[in-house]
């Protein structure tokens, strides 16, 4: 029983972190239809910024992530401008756009290697080595803090998208670009804003990642498949769906690791994805 409850709790903590990594992708890939394969690479950039400011000035990684988010937003908006001018405007976004983001990913990795080398980077904060025990349930703050921050961030993004005019316009641009134009909104500017928002989330997700474990420039590749799978499983563009999918993958991985053996964890998680898509091709919360 102890093992089962702890596995569920660990899975929820892990799932919330997966949601933080995937929420930006849910906007760019799920809503804007931009296959941003470089998304996890931006997460790694976020980790490096957290490491630099934490190791040099002792700043808390979460604070660094929040402070870096506006800069990431601007970078994201600029990248979308380039993407739009080079590919989307000419209708070449499918294959050429994918190659573009592959290129961005490799450039990020190489720049990180050239500037900061290849050693593993970690952050330190007083609370990261602490544990809270609630009866037989152990809660390591190394995972609890990312859970809380990730929940706040995904909640804020969801509220923004569902409650504000710009947020609704982002949802609308994914559904009917022409109708949005008729309403007087500029779809390109809306998409630019949305892509900036998607990249801004990676600053915080990166800070959370380096709190959980060490980071090196190519680590982002580990999360490419998982993040895309979560977005697809949740239903393209659905933030609540993405959160449910992330928690589902986290809990499944944790339960399988605890009871069947960790080598089965990816197979079971991706098996769940395949079964869900077979029964419900649009994902858990996707529009049929």
């Amino acid at each position, binding site marked *: 029983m*102890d*093992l089962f409850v*702890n*596995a569920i709790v*660990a*899975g929820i*903590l*892990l799932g919330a*972190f997966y949601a933080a990594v995937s929420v930006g992708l849910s906007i760019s890939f799920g809503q804007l239809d931009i296959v941003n394969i470089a998304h996890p690479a931006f997460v790694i950039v976020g980790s490096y910024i957290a490491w630099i400011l934490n190791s040099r000035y002792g700043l808390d990684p979460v604070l660094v992530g929040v402070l870096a988010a506006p800069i990431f937003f601007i970078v994201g908006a600029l990248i979308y401008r380039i993407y739009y001018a080079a590919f989307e405007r000419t209708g070449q976004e499918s294959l050429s756009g994918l190659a573009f983001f592959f290129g961005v990913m490799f450039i990020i*990795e*190489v720049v990180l*290697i050239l500037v*900061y*080398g*290849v*050693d*593993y*980077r*970690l952050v*330190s904060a007083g609370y990261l*080595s602490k*544990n809270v025990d609630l009866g037989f349930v*152990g809660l*390591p703050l*190394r*995972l609890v803090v990312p859970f809380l921050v990730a929940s706040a961030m995904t909640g804020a993004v969801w509220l923004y998208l569902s409650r504000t005019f710009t947020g609704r316009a982002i949802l609308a641009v994914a559904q009917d670009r022409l109708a949005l134009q008729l309403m007087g909104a500029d779809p390109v500017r809306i998409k630019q804003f949305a892509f900036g928002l998607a990249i801004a989330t990676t600053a915080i997700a990166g800070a959370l990642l380096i709190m*959980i*474990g*060490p980071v*090196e*420039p*190519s*680590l982002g590749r*580990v999360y490419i498949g*998982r993040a895309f799978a979560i977005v697809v499983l949740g239903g393209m563009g659905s933030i609540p769906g993405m959160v449910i999918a992330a928690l589902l993958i986290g809990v499944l*991985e*944790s*339960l399988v*690791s*605890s*009871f069947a*053996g*960790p*080598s089965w*964890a*990816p197979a079971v998680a991706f098996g769940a994805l395949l079964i869900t898509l077979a029964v419900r091709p649009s994902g858990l919360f996707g529009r049929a």
Partner: protein
Amino acid sequence: MVNRRSFARAIIAAGALAFAAGALVSAPAHAAKPLKIGFSMALTGGLAGAGKAALIAMEIWREDVNKKGGILGRPVEFVYYDDATQPAKVPGIYTKLLNVDKVDLVVSSYGTNEIAPAMPIVMRKKLVFPSLFGLAVNDEFNYDRYFQIMPAGPEPKTDWSKGFFELAAEQNPKPKTVAIVSADSEFTLNAAAGARQNAKSGGFIIVYDKTYPMSTTDYSPIVRAIEAANADIVFVASYPPQSVGMVKAAREVGLKAKMFGGAMVGLQFAAIQKNLGPALNNIINYDFWVPEPTLNFPGVKEFLARYQEAAKGKGVDPLGHYLPPYAYAYLQVLEQAINATKGLDQGKLAAHMHKATFKTVVGDVKFAKNGEWATSRTLQVQFRDVKPNDMAQFSGPGKRIVLYPKAWKSGDIVYPFNQ
């Protein structure tokens, strides 16, 4: 005014001078044709931290050799390519090194996963193949020109963890049950296979034996499952990010095992040691060189001082205790073999390397028939009195006590792990 005839004479004279000068320059250049050593190296990707550190050590060796006038009177040059920690790239790199770059000699990249794919190419050309930290690669190939610098011993799979299990068997009361957990990759699976054999031959009962994918993020479910299995000792075979995850999870869960460690790569790296700090205390893990008085080989401290200077600002392990001395030493072995045989005849080089004992910065090196060290020197070291956030503490003795082998022992075990 210069007339046409005198202009033509001037041209001829200049041409003759240039020819003579060219001959003077090219004659010694021809005599000192560089000796090219080719290799692939993980300079990007997951193993790049070690790969780049190895390259720094190899460049120090090249500088030393060229200062002495090179090998066989020829300056040494390196031709190398980044294999990006992708084994699939390695065969192509060695094919290019041998067929296009026409290198004189090859040595290996770092690590089991990158060495094994080069073997068929090197074997086809019947070349001597000094290799850098491959675990049991030659078990599959049985190549008589393979020479491996990591001191894993003649039976690398089992020798790797022999000390861990012998130490466990010496404790009173003797622990009974063991958990073996490893990452799903070539090296770690080999290490786990050896641990399994050692556990069985030592009379231990294996109560948990699982692998985990390299992409695992949270290790606490694995540690809790091990705890639930009531394992007295826990043998972990992992790569750096996973090693950090396992240590943190073990401390968070409060693992009650009596021994914890084994084959965790990464706990030898200064940045990780600094970050984990006191969480490392009492962990018993493999290592190959630590700054204990029993391992003070001639030249090793001088080499490390130069490495540490060269490593500054390059984003690699700043202390370089783990791999760099061996990356220097495997080229020392090659150099000494070439000088002894006075040529590059691969058959003679291999024959000499099988019978000679080489003096290197990692001590005397003697190879067994299968190209591994004739005698294992896989250390089992125990972290002791580690303080938080202090990298400098690891540069001196007293933090990683050598428990095994007895010939190199520098202190006694602290047992059990969680006290």
